């Protein structure tokens, strides 16, 4: 029996990892950027150099400025996120499970969901004052809707066969919710959390641009007002890091919570 050398014609379909290209892309952009600033084609005032941004960032870490802003932002973010997610999941389960709640909830959510939450900020300030409450509330609102809608969809999509099987084995209403519906909705809930995390970051920056003295949004706006562009860039880098961090920690949390799923 002879082996025939057959050309693998699906080879072009294979998607390989290119770890070096990943690193090169990031480093390349940084080097070109630094070069632009060094040559002086773009004034440093308008596009600060990466090294300048790093140096400024280091100064701000030493002075404690970064810690102060990040702590303030994280507090608002975590609080708003927790309140919004808790409310969203509870409402989502209620609407998904109880028919009266569904009849009441779906039209209300459908009517209020499309409102850009930033537009509500002035109203929230009027109701809750200029302090922390209005900032946390707008983030909570932004997180609430994707959470409620995703949880509702997840609960509705629970396999009826599993539900019937659970009931056949003697499960009561709460057991069915807790042991069948909630776990099967978990992937959707996590998708909602990811959507919410993006929205939360956006609303955080918007909320921190009014009447605050700390936070990354304030740092960006304030540095812009003062034309301290290097500082402004440090703020933008911090926002990017915060986004990456929230994505990463949600991934970790998902792996723990949905340990039976193998696909990631």
């Amino acid at each position, binding site marked *: 029996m002879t082996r025939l050398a057959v050309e693998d014609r699906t080879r072009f379909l294979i998607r390989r990892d290119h770890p070096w290209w990943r690193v090169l892309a990031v480093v390349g952009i940084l080097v070109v950027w630094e070069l632009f600033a060094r040559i002086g084609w773009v004034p440093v005032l308008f596009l600060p150099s990466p090294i300048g941004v790093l140096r400024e960032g280091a100064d701000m870490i030493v002075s404690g400025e970064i810690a102060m802003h990040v702590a303030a932002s994280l507090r608002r973010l975590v609080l708003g996120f927790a309140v919004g997610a808790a409310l969203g999941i509870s409402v989502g389960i209620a609407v998904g499970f109880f028919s009266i709640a569904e009849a009441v909830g779906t039209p209300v959510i459908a009517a209020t969901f499309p409102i850009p939450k930033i537009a509500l900020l002035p109203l929230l300030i009027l109701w809750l004052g*200029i302090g922390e409450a209005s900032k946390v509330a707008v983030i909570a609102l932004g997180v609430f809707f994707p959470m409620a809608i995703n949880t509702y969809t997840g609960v509705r999509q629970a396999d009826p066969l599993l539900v019937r099987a659970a009931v056949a084995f003697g499960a009561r209403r709460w057991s069915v919710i807790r042991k069948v519906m909630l776990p099967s909705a978990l992937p959707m809930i996590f998708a909602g959390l990811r959507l919410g995390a993006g929205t939360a970051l956006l609303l955080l920056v918007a909320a921190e641009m009014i009447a605050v003295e700390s936070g990354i949004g304030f740092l960006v706006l304030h540095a812009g007002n*003062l034309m*301290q562009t290097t500082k402004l860039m440090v703020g933008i880098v911090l926002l990017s890091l915060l986004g990456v961090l929230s994505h990463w920690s949600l991934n970790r949390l998902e792996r723990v919570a949905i340990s039976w799923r193998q696909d990631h």
Partner: protein
Amino acid sequence: MIRSLLALVLLVTFTLPAHAADKVKVGVLKLTSSATLFVGVEKGFFKEFGVEPELVYFQAAAPIATALAAGQVDVGATGLTAALYNIVLGGEKIWVVADKGREWPGYPLTAIVVQNELYDGGLRGVTDLKGKRIGITQLGSTFHYHLGNVLEKHGLTLNDVKIVPLQAMGAAMEALKGKQVDAIMLPQPFPGTAEAQGFGRILAWGGDLFPWQIAAVFYSKKFAAERERAVNFMKGYAKAARYYHDAVLAQKDGGRAPGPNYDEVVAITAKYTGGKPEIIRIGFPYQDRNGRLLTADIAKQIDWWVKHGFMKSALPLSEVVDTRFLETALKALEK
């Protein structure tokens, strides 16, 4: 196709520079404090010296400084903010060349306005502001500087009050109305409006508490290099400044005495700002009759911003102030 493209290129190359050569782009705010520029344009004082200004309107002072550094306007006329000094500190050139408005005793410009209830409750002096929330537009703005210095003059510091940056003047007004802040510091016409609508009371006028060089005329690096035109622009400006001063700023026996052209300047200001004449009549900001700067005050401002952490380091005056354009122009006018 190619021919039409070529024609277009030719058209652009021949029309653009010629166009750019006669018009001087002047960045201003649509406020009473820009009146001198409006007078100069309307009365043709700039044209008299061969300069054709084109007014470009902005919403706030700091963007004018940015536009100057980016070369989008040739001349700026607005408030002196930390942003302006930071631009120069960042390596771009902007020259402060003439006076465009001072906070001055007896001339209402910016006021501290407090909630009606607090005023009735006995809040009557600057020292009573201790512990209060005070709304301004932005940190690093002229209001921030002014308020800080007023407090320091009265033995307080900025840390004794809570500064609330609200970004826009309208937002600060709304915050006082909605009792989100206890006091605000804003320029006319806002203080007058707050009193008229009954939710605010004017505690004091900024110029009476702390006089300073709040606004100036700036030149971009490119415009300053065109020495002859830059001086000619100053000739027109000095003439406008004298006209403005004699019409609306003259004083007699401790009170303001409207000059012969008072109504004309009010009408010109109303035309360019779109404001109501009766509100414009409340007051014009003071400025030097010859447009001369309080140069020493600029140094004081830079020191203050550095001391309070809004500038990284001090800036020598010779890097940011150049009064030679105006002085040359004034000499030429005397002849």
